[in-house]
């Protein structure tokens, strides 16, 4: 394996799982040429005229789709930790004696721990998606046969469009579908709101299987997934565990420290003049991030300010802002609670989006760069503002990238993070894994001070008399070490266990095996 140093100084291989790789060249520097990938041309003459694509079960669908060794099988993560389908696919593959598959999920969750068994017995060769919790641990310890590849939501769309990943079979679980394959996530016991993460899969996979536990007569509308892309439809008793897909109701964190961070973040945005009529913002579903939107809400009500749109995962609080006229539109990437689903169903201003519209590198522009304020998290940030979201300071791979890299393209990116967690400093010399380059990260808000990226002279100027605790990021790093002590570095072997892709498909960093 040959290695080169990329544009952010990380040493990365030029070949992964037998495929040549392009090292990261810098933000916006990689401009690929050629044509997009396309699946084989289908012919409607080969599909039933009555539109009925139902087959007996998932096994039959997989066999009909031609499941065989080495294929790339994709799934989406709208079911989050309540997914009952992905594990079944590989149980069937094992039963059929199929080997060396590549699992290409849009994200994995702790409920996918059984996948470890299929990685061990050779049914699955490696994962391209995210390796969370137990799967991350398994990968970090060097147990996966191939090298894992982590991509952002936008990077996944990019890889599918430019042919870096050519999906053989997409299995799309949907809360609601008809026998033709039209599907959406708006109805049924396994409702997810939208199915945006499965959009690329439906359009570009060789074979598409829709799985539902809520079969409707044709037509199932709205068709978030077009039946015209679908080969087979499977009806099942249960495709997800509802309470693990959506929370009944989202609650603001009770942690005083997180609330403090969220409030400070909102105050910063206000002081910097970012909260103004017609602005837009994106917050995640994490505790602190959610609380930030709550404080935005308070400021907007008090000051009589309206936002044009809110992006990101929707929840009860965001829906209330929409319904109270504080925001004109929600551009929803994934729905987190029942209020979100209801609103998406009933309110035309609650719009379902996909990585194509929001994040895709091969789109002719995308929404991410149009958002005024973006609130994100991180496991680590270094003194050069580089961020890490996939590994912890102990070197273990534990999280996926999600939309994090893509959302960094927002106009002002703010990371409210604690200075340390228990004894682990979060602001460090150098991130363990570099997932986002510092040039895209503007502000770090910690409970012991706010650091502004020196590139953002406008923000520095706007907040200099705000009375907010603005400090140098090196001060934060030293403060963290003063309280926690200076940590030793985790030890790794030379073996690469996973690669981190940038949004354009280049390799920005790798994760190495933990030395036991």
């Amino acid at each position, binding site marked *: 394996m040959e290695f080169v140093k990329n544009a952010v100084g990380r040493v990365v291989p030029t070949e992964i799982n037998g495929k040549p790789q392009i090292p990261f060249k810098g933000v916006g520097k990689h401009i690929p040429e050629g044509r997009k990938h396309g699946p084989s041309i289908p012919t409607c003459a080969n599909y039933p005229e009555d539109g009925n694509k139902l087959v007996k079960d998932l096994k039959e669908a997989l066999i009909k789709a031609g499941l065989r060794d080495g294929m790339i099988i994709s799934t989406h993560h709208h079911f989050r930790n309540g997914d009952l389908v992905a594990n079944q696919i590989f149980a069937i593959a094992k039963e059929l004696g199929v080997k060396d598959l590549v699992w290409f999920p849009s994200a994995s969750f702790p409920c996918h721990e059984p996948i470890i068994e299929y990685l061990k017995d050779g049914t699955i060769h490696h994962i391209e998606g995210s390796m969370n919790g137990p799967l991350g641990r398994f990968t970090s310890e060097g147990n996966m046969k191939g090298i894992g590849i982590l991509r952002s939501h936008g990077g996944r769309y990019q890889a599918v469009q430019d042919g870096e990943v050519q999906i053989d079979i997409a299995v799309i679980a949907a809360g609601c579908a008809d026998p033709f394959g039209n599907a959406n996530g708006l109805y049924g016991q396994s409702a997810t709101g939208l199915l945006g993460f499965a959009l690329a899969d439906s359009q570009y996979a060789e074979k598409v299987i829709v799985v539902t536990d809520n079969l409707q007569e044709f037509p199932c509308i709205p068709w978030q997934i077009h039946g015209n892309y679908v080969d087979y439809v499977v009806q099942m008793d249960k495709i997800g565990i509802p309470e693990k897909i959506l929370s009944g109701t989202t609650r603001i964190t009770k942690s005083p420290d997180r609330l403090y961070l969220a409030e400070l973040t909102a105050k910063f945005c206000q002081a910097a003049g970012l909260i103004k009529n017609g602005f837009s913002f994106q917050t995640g579903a994490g505790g602190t991030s959610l609380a930030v939107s709550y404080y935005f809400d308070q400021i907007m009500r008090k000051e009589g300010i309206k936002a044009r749109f809110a992006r990101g995962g929707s929840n009860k609080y965001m829906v209330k802002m929409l319904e109270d006229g504080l925001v004109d539109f929600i551009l929803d990437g994934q729905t987190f609670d029942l209020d979100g689903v209801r609103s998406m169903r009933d309110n035309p201003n609650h719009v379902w989006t996909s990585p194509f519209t929001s994040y895709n590198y091969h789109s002719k522009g995308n929404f991410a760069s149009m958002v005024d304020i973006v609130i994100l998290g991180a496991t680590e940030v270094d003194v050069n503002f580089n961020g890490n979201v996939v590994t912890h300071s102990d070197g273990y791979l534990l999280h996926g990238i999600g939309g994090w890299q893509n959302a960094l393209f927002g106009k002002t990116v703010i990371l409210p993070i604690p200075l340390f967690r*228990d004894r682990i400093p979060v602001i460090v010399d150098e991130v363990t894994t570099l997932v986002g380059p510092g040039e895209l990260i503007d502000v770090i808000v910690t409970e012991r001070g706010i650091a502004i990226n020196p590139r953002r002279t406008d923000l520095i100027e706007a907040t200099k008399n705000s009375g907010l605790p603005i400090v140098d990021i090196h001060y934060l790093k030293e403060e963290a070490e003063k309280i926690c002590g200076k940590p030793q570095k985790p030890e790794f072997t030379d073996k690469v266990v996973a690669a981190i892709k940038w949004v354009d498909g280049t390799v920005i960093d790798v994760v190495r095996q933990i030395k036991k």
Partner: protein
Amino acid sequence: MSKIATAGNKGGGIRSDCFVTLELKNGDGIIVNLKSKVEALFGDEIRDQAIKILKFFGISDAEITMEDTGALPFVIAARIEAAVKQLIDTEKNYLFEILPENKYQTEKDRFRFTRLYLPGNTPKLMINAGIHKPDGIILDLEDAVAPDKKDEARFLVRNALSLINFYGAERMVRINQGERGLEDLEYVVPYNVNMILIPKVESAERILEVENKINEIKAKHGIDYNIWYMPILESALGVENAFEIATASPNVVAMAIGLEDYTADIGVQRTNEGTESLYARMRMVNACKAAGIQPIDSVFSDVADMEGLLENVKRSKALGFEGMGCIHPRQIAVIKEGFKPAETELEKAKKIMVAFEKAKKEGKGVISLGTKMIDPPVVKRAEKTIKLAVQFAMLPENWLEEELNNNDK
């Protein structure tokens, strides 16, 4: 003495702590077993620290098992010391240098609107307490610590006083009742504590007992600054003796009422409205005002009910209280909000102060506002309101100058 000792907390929900099991051995040196969630980052450092502390106490043969959930070094040291002192008799203390930023004293009449209670044996709640900006932080050695954990809490509180930056909050410790409370003082007085909370006080005698002990420790350590006392009245007898207690020492600068215990003592249920304790509260407020110290109200126990809390604060302020206890950081902002002067109150105070200044300049003995004469106590109250408003950043410090200049134009 026993050969095995434990200290610290472990189990569900425990973070930033270290459960230590120490066994003295004969020979074989020191064996450290560490199970830590920060092993990859601090494993070696924690093992070195354990050996260093054991050697400091002259222990050369022992097995120490540490179940660490990300404890900071001062916590680990407190846990090990607590275990050691159950097994050997020693005069030695494993001390840290007090952070220079922790060596501040507080003024007798500083505002004490909010004081945040922190259980003295729960490190995770202490570390970030200061960022929530309460006026005071109480490291509680009394009711918030389980009886069998009271010894080990002393080491934790002592180390916390040295090493946690509370960012300007008044550094308070609530000691225990009786003899244990006097012993507690040894662990806090030398470490730049600003104020001692004395629970369940029923007479001036207890204040003097505590004061004598404090003076003894201060003399031993060459401490010459003031350490203030806040007695807490928690019984019918305490309330009856409120004035005697308030005037027992010039170092009594505030007095609090504890209504959970008080209502139990008089045999009634505590309500949000507080009718049952109205007499006790008014009696205490009156005693405090007569003695020239701050009356401080009891805590509001429902941490989820912010509206109820605000109502309570407003009632409290109306009765004359000048502060309240907090049991959750989220209560701090609400209580401060409640004690803020109202806009109308502030406008009136400003007018009075301006009239007062003008009269002074013009050498007038009598101050009037419109057709109304203003008495000195009214001016005094206005002054207090203004001081409060400045503290809450509702007014700039030089507001009067600006106001007078504007009036001249």
